[in-house]
């Protein structure tokens, strides 16, 4: 620890709140996760405080950040966390997290599949070159998988193994969640095996992501909770991206929170004149 300093990132996503703390060396000290429920701030505070066994960045009244702690918020809820010392978009946060964790020197592409959106981020020369985010529909996101799992009455945790047990490649509409849902019903009515249907569901997610933009780098890094919870997706992306090296970043769902924590470190060090920040100034 650097004089007891903590740098915190809060990734307030559409389905989960991820918290990560690191020290001045960028070592991860703590990770916590909570659900995105409402009132939002109540659940953000709850996740930041944890079960009391680990340090929290919040003051006793939970209204502000303690001295020696710096906190940066990212994710869709980032602008609602009033006590944060700064905010950062998920695109930059996932980039910072992946860059620190993997220390890649060449160009690479980050594919982050989140609860409500998916992003493809191209990194060139150690910075974000360009990025795209999915169109309005939830197809190709965690919400899409959840919606169809719900329709099929299959627990989310069972999806990967069921997909791995498929014996036929099928195609599902990847354009729209409603279209896909209708197609699922039709396919089930025709007596198709559930395993094949779930595999097709994942394939449509892969398809939807790959049609967002051309992947031009050899290295492809996967990040985000959906990749974490659905390991079959990595296998399927690798199959769909021959000639590329696909790898899942460690603790993929915390990558954004970790990136935000690194940004907090940069913010604090910029204020103290040491300067760690490698994005545009806040």
């Amino acid at each position, binding site marked *: 620890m650097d004089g007891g300093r903590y740098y915190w990132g809060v990734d307030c996503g559409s389905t989960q709140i991820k918290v990560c703390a690191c020290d001045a060396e960028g070592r991860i000290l703590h990770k916590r996760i909570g659900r995105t429920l409402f009132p939002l701030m109540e659940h953000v505070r709850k996740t930041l405080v944890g079960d009391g066994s680990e340090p929290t960045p919040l003051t006793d009244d939970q209204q502000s950040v303690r001295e020696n702690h710096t906190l940066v918020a990212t994710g869709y809820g980032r602008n609602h966390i009033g006590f944060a010392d700064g905010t*950062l978009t998920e695109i930059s946060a996932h980039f910072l997290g992946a860059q620190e964790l993997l220390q890649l020197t060449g160009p690479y592409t980050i594919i982050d599949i989140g609860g409500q*959106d998916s992003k493809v981020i191209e990194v060139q020369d150690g910075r974000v*070159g360009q990025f795209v985010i999915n169109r309005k529909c939830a197809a190709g996101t965690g919400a899409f998988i959840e919606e169809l799992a719900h329709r099929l009455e299959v627990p989310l945790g069972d999806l990967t193994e069921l997909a791995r047990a498929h014996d036929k490649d099928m195609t599902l509409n990847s354009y729209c969640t409603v279209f896909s849902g209708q197609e699922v019903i039709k396919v089930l009515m025709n007596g198709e095996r559930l395993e094949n249907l779930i595999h097709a569901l994942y394939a449509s997610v892969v398809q939807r992501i790959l049609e967002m933009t051309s992947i031009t780098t050899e290295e492809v890094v996967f990040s985000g909770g959906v990749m974490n919870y659905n390991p079959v997706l990595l296998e399927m992306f690798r199959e769909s991206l021959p000639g590329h090296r696909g790898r899942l970043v460690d603790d993929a769902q915390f990558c954004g929170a970790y990136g935000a924590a690194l940004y907090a470190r940069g913010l604090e060090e910029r204020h103290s004149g040491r300067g760690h920040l490698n994005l*545009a100034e806040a």
Partner: protein
Amino acid sequence: MDLKQVMKDYFLDLDAASKDPARKVAWCTSVGPAEILRAMGFEVFFPENHGAMLGATRVCMDTIPKANAFGYSPDICSYLTSDVGAYLKGVTPLTRAYGIETVPRPDILVYNTNQCKDVMHWFEYYGREYGAPVFGIHPPAHLPEVEPNHVADVVAQFEALIEVLEGLQGRALDEADLRRACALSKEATDLWAEVLATAMARPSPLTFFDGTIYMGPIVVLRGTEVARDYYRALLDELRTKVQQGTAAVPGERKRIYWDGMPIWGRLRSMSDLFSDNRACVVASTYCNSWIFSDFDAADPLPSMARAYLKIFINRNDRFKEDYIRKLVDEYAIDGVVFHEAKTCPNNSNSQYNLPARLRASGIPAVIINGDLNDLRCFSDEQSTTVIEAFVETL
């Protein structure tokens, strides 16, 4: 000059004209031949301007569904659906703004498909409703260059329009009136170009979002002294701001180009979003589309034909790319935001690989999904993230 008063006077006079049997009202598309209509003594109403008002006031969110239910698809121009829905519901934002009960009744509707074909369907609907004649100018479209035969084609259509107008007014066109309207449009549009060019200063004294408000007179008052006088005064004001270093976005750090339509119902929040990120949208395809440098009072019809043929939206993709690259250079742009409007493909230049071509040559570009009026097609959260991330990475 106070812009609010300029616009108020314009609408009140239109309302008065509509109630006066001795005066006639023409409806015209925003880049239609307003000068001819004015020279023939018509007061001119622009339904697209009304559409933008429906968008900016968000009244359209009640009127678009009405038009959808009536049979106008949610996928077509949301100016059209906003406006037709407003007609069906019997509402107009003019009531709240100026106490005007309804839009002025047209004696003729004149459209020009130099921008899109939806205006044809839009005007034909009202032609049926009001039992008024509808005249369409159908120029050659998507041109790489404007050639003499294109100009001759449009001049012939203007001449046919003039014949119809002469029949309605019971008098011949006075050439001097047309030259005068053309000269006034030329003065106003040159001043508008200078107004926009003040944003080349660093920091810029105005943003694209200011421009969408300032542009009212160049859209609805072309061919009048009022428009010319307004832009003279505005130019003085902006030049003073440049001299004083007054920034539209305090602490301006990044300079952005906006391609595509404004998101009328989110003008304020989008303006704040860029400003909060110390990014100034200094140039746009949209505001620049009302620069008609070709007007020439000495040669009114051919010069009008050239001016209205040469508009950005009526050109091919090569022209559009070169145009944007030129402005990126002139305005020292750091990045380009493409607004892909769901219901306005003609004004969405992101759909044919242009952002990728810009990026390939080192010009950062990003796309946001949205719409000019239909906020059902727009996600505040997603757009905020995309724009903030874009500025972060510039």
